[in-house]
């Protein structure tokens, strides 16, 4: 399988001081030679060295550059790699890339450098997945979590669990292979406790997957409320600029606006919706219907109430819609005379709860003023508390951020459950190791480690057998 040479801009497309074009593949040096003018040909320099020179497209000098030459296999991808550090802005970097592409490289697909690194055995599966997450991660939390996975925290955690599983399997197996030397009497009970502990650890990791998803993909947030309750104003405050058109006229927002905002290190994908009310206007009506759809699928609903006006049947409709969602209620326009106080709102919510048979006692109700930007920081704190449990912030906790890992963990947890079932059903000990080994293998799939001779080696290293 001959690998062609790929290239891409490996820094963000911002007007930063330096932009890097990375080329990887067996033709990387050849391509670079064609466009680089310096003291020596790059194909003749040793690996892991830096060279000063110019990049030219034909006779045209594009930029003054530093070129880093790294030879296989000691590179990220495991292939010959050239990195061109350009000094120009976005435009120049793009020109340099185009020139590289004209001279023997093709554009890299998203994640292709990582894929090559994996295929060349430079990283295990969980590491390469983490790099992919890193590339596409959106928030600081996700970034941190990817970094942790990359450093092997996930691998260490999984390995720890695997070690425990294989120790117990090896003990059972050594007794089966050498029944006259090693006895399993009473072992079931001991293993049961251990199996439940292991299951709990795995389940914790699975639970982290949901947080992991939120960190990586952001919180799907929908702002709802009656027309002119101040939904768009809130969005503008949160995003910091006038994204939505704000007017005094009810029903100004007729469609749905989407905005991505950064809040306490979390990403909120905020959808501002048309105000929900009974309306004859067809376009507005469509907007209202879509608002209801969005609210149903959201991770978080922000219900904005105009506290200067009385609640009416439209509010009741909204409350019915959101009472089984994770919700924050904002009593807006605290700068005006407040008619709807927190107490009034609580009472209303309680009625809604009775009507729907739901418990809504812990729905946070905050008083804000979008106009004065007061109460906004309390709101941000509340969101953070709701999604990131107090104990986990920028620390070393591990989050499962991808579906393959999650499903492997679920398999492992299920297998451990079967171990407990077998123990409870009074099955003989050899049945335990069937599911123990399944769990071991599922976990191995996360780190890309296969079973091989692990069990045999564990048996011999830990237990004394033999004639």
């Amino acid at each position, binding site marked *: 399988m001959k690998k062609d040479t790929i290239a891409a801009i490996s820094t963000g497309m911002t007007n930063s001081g330096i932009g890097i074009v990375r080329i990887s593949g067996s033709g990387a040096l050849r391509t670079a030679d064609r466009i680089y003018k310096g003291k020596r040909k790059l194909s003749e320099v040793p690996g892991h060295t830096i060279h000063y020179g110019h990049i030219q497209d034909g006779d045209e000098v594009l930029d003054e550059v530093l070129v880093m030459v790294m030879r296989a296999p000691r590179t990220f991808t495991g292939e010959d790699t050239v990195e061109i550090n350009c000094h120009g802005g976005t435009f120049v970097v793009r020109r340099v890339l185009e020139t590289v592409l004209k001279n023997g490289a093709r554009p890299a697909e998203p994640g292709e450098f990582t894929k090559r690194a994996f295929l060349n055995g430079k990283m295990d599966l969980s590491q390469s997945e983490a790099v992919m997450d890193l590339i596409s991660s959106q928030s600081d939390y996700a970034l941190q979590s990817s970094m942790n996975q990359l450093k092997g925290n996930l691998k260490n955690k999984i390995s720890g669990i695997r070690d425990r599983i294989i120790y117990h399997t090896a003990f059972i197996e050594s007794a089966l292979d050498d029944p006259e030397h090693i006895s399993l009497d009473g072992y079931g009970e001991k293993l049961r406790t251990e199996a439940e502990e292991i299951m709990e650890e795995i389940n914790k990791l699975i639970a982290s997957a949901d947080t992991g998803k939120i960190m990586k993909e952001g919180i799907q947030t929908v702002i709802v409320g009656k027309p002119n309750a101040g939904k768009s104003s809130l969005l503008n405050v949160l995003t910091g600029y006038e994204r939505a058109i704000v007017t005094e006229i009810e029903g100004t927002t007729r469609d749905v606006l989407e905005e991505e905002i950064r809040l306490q290190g979390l990403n909120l994908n905020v959808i501002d919706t048309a105000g929900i009310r009974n309306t004859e206007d067809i376009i507005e009506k469509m907007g209202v219907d879509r608002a209801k759809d969005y609210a149903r699928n959201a991770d978080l609903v922000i219900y904005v109430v105009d506290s200067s006006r009385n609640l009416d049947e439209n509010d009741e409709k909204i409350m019915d819609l959101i009472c089984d969602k994770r919700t924050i209620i904002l009593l807006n326009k605290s700068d005006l005379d407040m008619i709807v106080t927190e107490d009034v709102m609580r009472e209303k919510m309680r009625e809604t709860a009775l009507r729907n048979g739901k418990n809504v006692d812990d729905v946070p109700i905050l008083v804000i003023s979008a106009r004065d930007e007061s109460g906004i920081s309390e709101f941000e704190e509340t969101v953070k508390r709701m999604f990131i449990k107090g104990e986990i912030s920028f620390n070393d906790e591990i989050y499962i951020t991808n579906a393959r890992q999650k499903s492997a963990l679920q398999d492992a947890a299920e297998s451990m459950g079967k171990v407990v079932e077998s123990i409870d059903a009074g099955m003989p000990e050899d049945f335990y190791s069937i599911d123990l080994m399944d769990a071991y293998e599922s976990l191995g799939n996360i780190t890309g480690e296969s079973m091989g001779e692990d069990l045999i080696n564990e048996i011999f290293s830990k237990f004394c057998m033999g*004639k």
Partner: protein
Amino acid sequence: MKYSANSVWENKDEYDVAVVGAGHAGCEAALATARLGFRTVVFTVSVDSIALMPCNPNIGGSSKGHLVREVDALGGEMGNVIDRTFIQSKMLNSSKGPAVHSLRAQADKADYSRAMRQVLEDQENLDIRQMEVTDILAENGKVTGVRTYSGAEYRCRAVILCTGTYLKARCIYGDVSTYTGPNGLQSANYLTDSLKALGIRMYRFKTGTPARIDRNSIDFSKMEEQKGDERVVPFSFTTDPESVQIDQVSCWLTYTNKETHDIIRSNLDRSPLFSGAIEGTGPRYCPSIEDKVVKFPDKDRHQVFIEPEGKHTTEMYVGGMSSSLPEDVQYAMYRSVPGLEHAKIVRNAYAIEYDCIDARQLKNTLEFKNVEGLFSGGQFNGSSGYEEAAAQGLMAGINAARKLQGKEGVVLDRSQGYIGVLIDDLVTKESHEPYRMMTSRAEYRLLLRQDNADLRLTKIGYEVGLIDEERYQNLLEKEKMIEEETARVSRVNIGTSDQVQELLRSFGSTPLSSGTTLAELIRRPELSYEKLEEIDKERPDIPISMKEQVNINIKYDGYIKRQMRQVEQFKKLENKKIPEDINYDEIQSLRIEAKQKLNQIRPVSIGQASRISGVSPADISVLLVYLSSR
């Protein structure tokens, strides 16, 4: 060192197959080819050592018992012979699940050896020849015959190497070493060089055996008696179960103690293992007593089993205390064990070193990849144990015959039998020690039970030609009856009659609140097919062995189905064949180590490739991508 002092002459007896060695592998190999109609000669350094058991006096044991059953199901001989010559028998792990039940019999060593020799002597097409083979003759990468120490050349079309521990064998204890095979028998010192000249890579392995002690010098009152099972189960599916209900002899259990360990520790410097005088690699599963003391310093005692070597000798085997310590230390060490205070040693414990091959040079038919027609089996392939040897000998014999018949080889996969696991491991995985079969090596052991070896393999034995028509028809009948009875039991409804509730109570089982099927009741851990006989009015009269199958089929149904799904997954990768002409060097993304390993082993399938140590899951992904883009 090429021996050429003796003048060469050609023996004109016509043979198709030459088997080198008449141990447990050689006997099965020679019997298989002869029974399949090929004129076979089996060479041995001593006719008196045919089917010799130079180490432990038993056949079977955990997972090894499975092998014996499988050999029998395929038409091999070991099971028959041990059924006629055992002096004690036990079903190990009988309190565990059916997958790990395993038969182990104490053999009368001399009887066993004599009985097997008789089978060989009576076998049509089979000649026994006492002579050391020194050379394998080959032309153009194809075997043409063998040459013996006396200079005689035997022309044949296939050769099966079953040299056991005899190649350049050296026995060692303390600073004493003798260049002999086991039991002081003559070693075979020339063949290794001939094999090397054929381009075969050799390893040097080591194993050991404990002392034999005169039973008249043992005080059994200080030991625990170990009796055989009350009801003995035969190894062979063809043995009449009533014929094995004999008077059994006992074994005895005692323990080492702190004094024993002190003696060993203070003399470790005199052990050839620790001084470096032994270069071969020893097995981890069969450690010498000095190994155990060093490796497990926290254990204050180790078990010692005293086992008779036969009915017509006073020699007793000291299981658990193999050693290569000097003779004087051996005396002190053994005599520190309760009951052995006045022990008289008949034969010293010793370690033995021998040449064997890196079995990754073999195809999974046990034929050498680089020498056509040359097969090998047994300890020569880097395994250990009589049962492992017999299993390989049988398969090597079958496949040598298939080759001469112009038929495709018979390869059992890991889901078909322990034999499949054994051979796949040997030809695929790197091993630095003699390989022993273990139940934990078999991924699908719930399906690979000793009780169903005939159902798994006898059809194959029939197709090969080692199972006769009558036995085959009996098998088909058995299969049908099990199937019908399993189906019936799943259908039969059981009501809540007083008789039923009473029976359930008598086994400590919760009474029924409403009716259920017989199968549901069988699944309760405290119940079984047999126990429910009283309330099963329509039950047909079927043999015990079939009742056992019905019980297992029903009781472990859920687990069995899961295991079968695993097998399906496994088969998917096994069925992804790798073309023979694949050029691994061309696949750039493979790591260098993986390329080397793949080039060396040349696996037949992705499945086999995935089991090679040094080939990572990432390499397998690369291979899959490469194959799909070819």
